[in-house]
Each structure stands twice: as structure tokens, then as C-alpha cells.
């Protein structure tokens, strides 16, 4: 292959977009590595990011926190605004919780069963009955209702706020232009960084959890409402106008009903995200199922963690099945019979509630925690190093740690001096997009240094890169397979759906069973968490290649392999970069949560801060560093995706 000089105007006009891009990328990488190496030698003595440059955000924030604590009884900010607000919110959550506790247990079993029967059929109805009974059988009833009530209030608020914003944004391009980047940003950051700022104002408690959950879970419902109302066939709106409908009539009689399925899909996502954050909010003292999992994990009672964790998964699956079924108006089963039974349940519920038949019969309870504990013990003895062969979870853990995580962390944190690192990131930005991106990336990275979070961030980045590489190494080939064979897709799909419904926090439980604590379980959890997205977007990209293009390649005698490499993958490349982008964002949020199980890095720092009120300043700094890292990784992967898009049609 002849290599064209990189920055020669004459070659730039040459046709053949894919090859020349590949060659250019190769040259960029080679030059970059060489320059980095030379610069690292020259600047070897610069060492770590100078501590004296630390802007020391921690102290003023801790001071502010102190001031807030001292003044929260007297200052008008609390007495006039924040306290009434917390009182109302806490009151709502408590009222909901006590109402939920008043309702007899069998009503939940009935509601879950009938709801799923109605939206998904009888088999799903049985699943609902079994799922709701699980909470009683394992005696996590009250924790479940506590989680449900916090989530219920958060989701209600999200709907009450999100739907009007969505409608407004659908009616006005200007509002959408403002709302869109804000929503993008809200979705970019790992959910639990939202807990940090609110702990400053509201300390630990349900109000903080609620507000963080609200922010985290708001974007899908706003977006779905906006898109659902905007993406209607234009003919229908004309038809309504020509019938003389007012704007209001059009909205109520045409736009809303037509957008309903889309809005319900958004609601389902909002519920899923709210549940995952409500669980994480255990870190700031929210009880419920998340609290049980957290307490069990901290004391390494894996069996108990598994019981509560599975309860969360069951709740997530029941909610997801019900609301995704509700979003599909064609999917309704035996409506007459379901309605009859639902009406019959009303007096049964009232009678049970008044007579106080609220608790699940205790003779029916059962626990498998002990079994799990024994299984974990067995696994730790027998799977750690199977028959001393060097194969097993222990050697695997060591291999990943010694070969990848540690060298990468040392490379980023020590071997590459910080000015070179910033220069390198800026150069990547420049090559991908231009000066603006380069300056933004460099500033973000420098800010991380100035916050005194350089080393921890590099640790987190190293873990992210390892997890991302593993995810893509599994996810992209699997995506290629699912795109090509419908049967593989059908087989894998339920597993992916299942993985996607599991709140991130809960994924830590099974990996701890196998890998104990440390960085590797965090990375494995991140892989599990990000894998569905990697597979889904690869599959989507490859399936999006037009059939005619593929047939053209085949008609010229391309083999399956040639077609994949020369046609399918290049055309799917932008979508695959979306897979990379999603993977890295999910991996980052999981790696951060993995601070809980000894993952180290920024996550550990944040978790520590969230546990103790005196280090809230450091937590704040770590949180900002996470946000900056997320922004850097997001921008870079998006810029790559833009570069990979084929030239668009002539203007």
C-alpha cells in the first residue's frame, strides 16, 4: 500500500474516502505515539500534577456545608424555602409509604398479576403473581414498599414536570434548542453524582434522593413527549386544522393520543432510571431495598445482598414488562375478565386494609441467603484456581490487574507527564474536530488536575479503558452475529433485555460472588452493564445497511467476509461509534459505583464523601472530576463518530 503524505493538499482531494482516512489515522497515531514518547523523555522530571496548584475547592465547600448546618434552623433560606419544601416532599413520600403499607399483601399480588395479564397475556400474569409474592416469601416486603414509594413520588414529579416541558419544547423550536443540550448533559453524567450537590443543601435523606432521582430520570419523559408530539404525520395536523380544530383541541384530541405510545415508552425508561437511582441513593441513607443491599455488601453477606438485589431486579422487570406492554396499544388481553377481577379486588382490598391483613403470612417465608453464602464460599475455594491449573477467577483477576489495569494506570498517572497528557488530548481534539474541541478538552483535563483529582482520575480512566475494550471485544462480534443471524438475535435478546433492566448497583452482587472485592469485580460489572448497548448499536448499525447496497456487493462476487469488512462495517461505523460512546458512558458510571466494592479511583472518593458529612468537599471535587471525565470521553467518541460518517449528499 502506498502511503500518501498526511497534510498534502493534493492528496486531500483524492477520492476513495475510507482508505485515505484509515491511512491518515494510522499516521496520526504513529506521529502521536512518537511525539508523546519524546516529550515524556524530555519532560520526565515534571512528574505529577503539582499539588500546590490545587485550587482547593474542598475547603470552601466543606465550610459552606458547615455554615449550612449551623444556620439551617434560623436562616431564611431554610425557614422560608428549603424546610417547607422538604417537609412537603417528605410528607408526600411518607403518606404514600403508609398508604402502600395499609394495602393488604394479596392486593399487590393481584395488581401485579392482573396488570401483566391485561398488557401481556396470562403467562405474564402468572409471572406478576410470582414476582409480587417473592417480596413476601423473602420477607423484604417493607423495604420493597419503601423503595416503591420513593420511586413513585419521583416518577410522579418527573411526569408532572416532564410532560409539560416536553409539550412546550415540541411546540417551540426555541425551547427545544435550549432544552436539548441541557437534557443531553443530564443524561451524560453518571446518576449518582447528582446526589452530591443536594446533600449540601438537604443533608442526607429522602429529599436529596428524590431530587437527584428526579434530575436523573427526567430526560427520557421530556424527550419522548417532545419527539412523540413532533413526529406525527403532517397530514394529520393539516386535517385537524382544516376541520377547524383550535390549537388546544388539536393538542388534546390529536397530538396527545397519537403521541401516547411514545410517551409511555419514555415513561418506562424514566421508571427504570428512577429505580436504579433510588437504589443507589442508599449511599446517602435512603433505606429500602437499596439500603439492604448496601448493608449486606459492606459486611460481605453476599447471600443477603443477593436476596434484596434479586428483589430489586424482580421489581424492575415487573414494572418494565407492564409499562412496555402498556405502551403498545395493540397488546391487550381479556379486557372484560381483567376488568371484572379488578373491580372485585376493590372491596377485597378495603376489607383487608381495614382488618389489618397487611403482612405476608410468616409461615410462607423462606430464605436462600444461607445457600448462596455456602455457594459463594464453595466458589471462592474451588473456582479461585481450579485444580491449581492457573485457570480460575483468582488468576484471571490477577492477569487483568497486573497486565492491564496497573500498567495503564501507571502509564497515565506517572509515565506520561501531565503536560504531555493534556497536549495529547488536545491534539486528539484538534485532529478530530478543530481548535474549539481541542481547547475544551485541554481545559477540562487541566481542571481535573487543578481540583487535585489527577491521579484518581487516571486510575478511573485506566479502569474504563480496560472495561470498554473488554465490552467491545465481546459486544461487537456478538452484534455482527445477531445482525446476520435472526436466530442468534432471538436467542440473545431476552438476556440483553434482562441485563438492561437490572439497576447498575445490583450488578455488583453477582460479580462479588465470583471475584470478591477489588478493581476487577467493578470492571466485570461494568462489562455486564455496558454489553447490551454495545451489542444493540452494532446490530442496529449493521442492519441499517441498505439491502440494495449489500446485494450490490454480493453481485460483484464479494464473499461474506469481504462484504462485512468492505461494505457493512464501514457503513455501520458511525453507529458502532455510538455503541462505543454508550459503552464508555455506561462503563464510567459503573466504574464509579464500583468504588463501593474497592474499585478505587474517583468512585471511592465520592462514596467516602457521601458516607461522611465532613468530607463533602472532597466528594464534590471528585464529583466534578467525574462530570469532566464524562464530558471529555463523550465529546471525543462523538467527534470520532462524526468523522466516520460518509460524506452526506450534495447540498
Amino acid at each position: 500500500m502506498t502511503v500518501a503524505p498526511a497534510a498534502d493538499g493534493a492528496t486531500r482531494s483524492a477520492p476513495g474516502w475510507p482508505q485515505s482516512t484509515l491511512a491518515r489515522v494510522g499516521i496520526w497515531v504513529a506521529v502521536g505515539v512518537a511525539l508523546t514518547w519524546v516529550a515524556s523523555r524530555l519532560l520526565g522530571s515534571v512528574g505529577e500534577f503539582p499539588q500546590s496548584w490545587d485550587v482547593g475547592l474542598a475547603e470552601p465547600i466543606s465550610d459552606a456545608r458547615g455554615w449550612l448546618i449551623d444556620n439551617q434552623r434560623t436562616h431564611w433560606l431554610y425557614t422560608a424555602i428549603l424546610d417547607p419544601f422538604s417537609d412537603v416532599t417528605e410528607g408526600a413520600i411518607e403518606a404514600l409509604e403508609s398508604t402502600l403499607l395499609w394495602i393488604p399483601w394479596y392486593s399487590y399480588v393481584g395488581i401485579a398479576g392482573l396488570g401483566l395479564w391485561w398488557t401481556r397475556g396470562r403467562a405474564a400474569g402468572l409471572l406478576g403473581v410470582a414476582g409480587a409474592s417473592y417480596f413476601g416469601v423473602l420477607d423484604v416486603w417493607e423495604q420493597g414498599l419503601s423503595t416503591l414509594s420513593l420511586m413513585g413520588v419521583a416518577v410522579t414529579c418527573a411526569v408532572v414536570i416532564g410532560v409539560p416541558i416536553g409539550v412546550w419544547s415540541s411546540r417551540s423550536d426555541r425551547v427545544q434548542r435550549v432544552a436539548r443540550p441541557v437534557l443531553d448533559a443530564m443524561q451524560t453524567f453518571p446518576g449518582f453524582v447528582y446526589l452530591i450537590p443536594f446533600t449540601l443543601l438537604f443533608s442526607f435523606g429522602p429529599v436529596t434522593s428524590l431530587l437527584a432521582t428526579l434530575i436523573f430520570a427526567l430526560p427520557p419523559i421530556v424527550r419522548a413527549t417532545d419527539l412523540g408530539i413532533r413526529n406525527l404525520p403532517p397530514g394529520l395536523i393539516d386535517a385537524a386544522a382544516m376541520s377547524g380544530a383550535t390549537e388546544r383541541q388539536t393538542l388534546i384530541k390529536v397530538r396527545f393520543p397519537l403521541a401516547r405510545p411514545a410517551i409511555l415508552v419514555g415513561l418506562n425508561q424514566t421508571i427504570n432510571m428512577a429505580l436504579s437511582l433510588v437504589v443507589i441513593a442508599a449511599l446517602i441513607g435512603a433505606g429500602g431495598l437499596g439500603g439492604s443491599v448496601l448493608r449486606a455488601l459492606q459486611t460481605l453477606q453476599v447471600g443477603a445482598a443477593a436476596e434484596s438485589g434479586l428483589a430489586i431486579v424482580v421489581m424492575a422487570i415487573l414494572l418494565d414488562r407492564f409499562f412496555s406492554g402498556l405502551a403498545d396499544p395493540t397488546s391487550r388481553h381479556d379486557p372484560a375478565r381483567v376488568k371484572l377481577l379488578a373491580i372485585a379486588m376493590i372491596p377485597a382490598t378495603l376489607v383487608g386494609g381495614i382488618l389489618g391483613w397487611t403482612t405476608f403470612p410468616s409461615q410462607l417465608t423462606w430464605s436462600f441467603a444461607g445457600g448462596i453464602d455456602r455457594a459463594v464460599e464453595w466458589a471462592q475455594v474451588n473456582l479461585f484456581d481450579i485444580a491449581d491449573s492457573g485457570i480460575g477467577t483468582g488468576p484471571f483477576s490477577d492477569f487483568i490487574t497486573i497486565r492491564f489495569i496497573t500498567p495503564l494506570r501507571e502509564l497515565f498517572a506517572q509515565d506520561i507527564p501531565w503536560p504531555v497528557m493534556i497536549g495529547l488530548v488536545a491534539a486528539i481534539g484538534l485532529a478530530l474536530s478543530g481548535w474549539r474541541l481541542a481547547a475544551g478538552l485541554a481545559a477540562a483535563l487541566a481542571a481535573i488536575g487543578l481540583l487535585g483529582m489527577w491521579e484518581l482520575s487516571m486510575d478511573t480512566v485506566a479502569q474504563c479503558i480496560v472495561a470498554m475494550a473488554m465490552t467491545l471485544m465481546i459486544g461487537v462480534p456478538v452484534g455482527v452475529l445477531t445482525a446476520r443471524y435472526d436466530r442468534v438475535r432471538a436467542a440473545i435478546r431476552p438476556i440483553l433485555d434482562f441485563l438492561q433492566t437490572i439497576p447498575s448497583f445490583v450488578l455488583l452482587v453477582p460479580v462479588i460472588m465470583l471475584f470478591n472485592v477489588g478493581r476487577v469485580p467493578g470492571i466485570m460489572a461494568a462489562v455486564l452493564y455496558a454489553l447490551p448497548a454495545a451489542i444493540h448499536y452494532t446490530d442496529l448499525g449493521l442492519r441499517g445497511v441498505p439491502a440494495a447496497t449489500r446485494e450490490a456487493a454480493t453481485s460483484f462476487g464479494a464473499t461474506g467476509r469481504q462484504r462485512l469488512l468492505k461494505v457493512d462495517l464501514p457503513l455501520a461505523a458511525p453507529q458502532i461509534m455510538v455503541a462505543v460512546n454508550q459503552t464508555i458512558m455506561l462503563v464510567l458510571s459503573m466504574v464509579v459505583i464500583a468504588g463501593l466494592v474497592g474499585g478505587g479511583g474517583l468512585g471511592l472518593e465520592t462514596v467516602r464523601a457521601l458516607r461522611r458529612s465532613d468530607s463533602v468537599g472532597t466528594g464534590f471535587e471528585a464529583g466534578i472530576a467525574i462530570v469532566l471525565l464524562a464530558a471529555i470521553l463523550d465529546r471525543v467518541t462523538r467527534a470520532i463518530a462524526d468523522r466516520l460518517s460518509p460524506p452526506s449528499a450534495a447540498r
Partner: protein
Amino acid sequence: MIEVSGLWKIFGDASAKAHRMASDGASRAEIQEQTGALVAVKDVSFSVAPGETFVVMGLSGSGKSTLIRCLARLIEPTSGDISICGADVIALSADGLRDLRRHRLSMVFQHFGLFPHRTVVDNVAFGLEVRGVPRADRRERALELIGTVGLDGWADHHPQQLSGGMQQRVGLARALAVDPDVLFFDEPFSALDPLIRRDMQDELIALQLRMQRTLVFITHDFSEALRLADRIAIMRDGEFVQVGTAVEIVTNPADDYVAAFTQDAPKAKVLTADHAMEPIERFDGDVGSLARVGRWTVLEDFIPRLLSTPDPLAVAGDDGEVIGVVSHADVARLLAPPARAAAEAAPLETRP
């Protein structure tokens, strides 16, 4: 019933400059090149009498859809005057416009524009519903119209359960439900199969005979225009190039563009004995023995009779007097392609 004068629609920011250029005779392409603005409707004027079917025929991009959307004010015209049922449509407030649409003006859409979340009867009743007609009354009226368009028994289905032709019947019933004086049709049948399209055209002709509304009908299909129209406007690059009855356009196309359409037109369905005949003065045989045909009978209807005899037919005027004679040769001459077109076609056959 409808009066339109000097109507312009220019898309783009530089509409004033584009307007000037177009008035000075610049072509649409030149204007778009220089200003970026697209002249979609250029100085269109016409009027439609009560009970008339006025068809605007043009190819895609000719501006016909923009024109009807301007008339309905679904898009705002750049300049010009529109009067419908005596109302100055351009000057109407939002309330006035809504009132016009609720009571006097309806529209049938190309892709039906039916509401998928409503049943057929609720679709048909939509206009009455937004007008505030009580539920029972509007249902009764809607069911009546569903019967009129031949969809009895389908009232409680959803539109997507119906075939394309049936869906457009729903669209037609919905438009008729508010008892409008004026109906706009935006290529209503072009999404349908040719046979269904024909049925729908027949149905519309029959309905129009009974109801006598004022119709403005947009189409890209010249033969559809010939079948339905009292008068046809041929539109090209935003302008009306010719307005006239089917016969006027077929017998006397204004330019080559219009002539190109008429070449493939089913002339035997349009032209009458009146066009084919030789005046009685030039005939020197005995008219009394000839079979008779009415002056306004279309060719298609009397050709079989002509073919059954070696003699010509006598053409009777409106008062029954014989005013001319039509022979085999007269009909053949009228239907044969123009000589020029034939000459052009010949060299093609000798090509290797």
C-alpha cells in the same frame, strides 16, 4: 364562490427580491440561483363558480399542492387576494379562519390524513366534534355519511383496518360531514390502485351530481382531470399556462407543454361529434337517409354506430336540425397523432 387574484407564494428569505425578479420575467431556476428563494406560486388568478369542479393539473414541483395549501391558508401566501364564500381569506383572523373551516370549507388529503387512534365514525365526526355538536347528533350525522360513501358496517373499525380506497371514502365522508360549500381535494386518489382510483372518480362524479358543491381538485393525472373537470388549469413552474374546458385544452393546447399532455389524452372520451363533423353546406348527398347522432355526443359513444355502416352519420344540432355530417375519415383525422409527432417517431425505428 372562489375568487383568487395575483396570488404569490415564495419560499425563502429573499422573497421581495425574488418577487421583483419574477415580475421582470426571470425564470424560476435563475431566481433560485441568485436569491435562494423558491417561487412556488407565481401570480395566479382564477375564479370558480358555485357548483363548478375546477381541476388544477400539474407535474410534481409545479406548485399545485402549495397553491391549494395557500387557498386553505395551511401555509401563508406571500401576497395576493383570496375570497371564498365571500370571506376575505387573507384578512381573516384565526377565529374567522377556524369558523370558515368549521362550516363552509373542507379538505380531502392525499395520504388520507385519517386519525389512527379514532374509529371510522369518530374520524368522520371530528369536524362536528370540534365545532361542539352533541355526541348523539354528530354520531347520527357521521353514520349517515358513512352510508353515503358506501361504508355501512365499518363505523366502529379503525382506519388502518381498511383498504386504501375505503380509507379515502372515510376521508371524503369526513369532509362532507360538516356540510361544506367548498371542498378542496389534494391529489386524493393518487395513492390508490388504478382500478380503485377509477371507482372513486365515478363515485365522486355521482356525488357531485347530487350535491352540487364547489370543488377545487388537485391532480397530476391528466386523464383524471379530463374526467372530473368542468374547467382545467394546467400549472407549470408555479404559473397557470392554460385554463379552459377539457375540450378547449385538447383541441387547442396553448403551448408545446400542454400539447405534450394532450397527445396521450383519451380524445375519444372528450371530443364530440361537433368537433369531427363537416358542416352540412359542404355535403352534397342525401342527409335524410343517414343515421343521426347528437352534436355533443363524444366520439367513443358513436364510433360503434359509425363502424356498422359504410355511410357517414348526420349530426343533429341542439334544436334537432341536421347541422353537419361526420364520416369515418373525419373521426380518424381527429384521433390520429399530429403529423409532426409521427415524423419524429419514424427515424427511431430505423436506428440500429
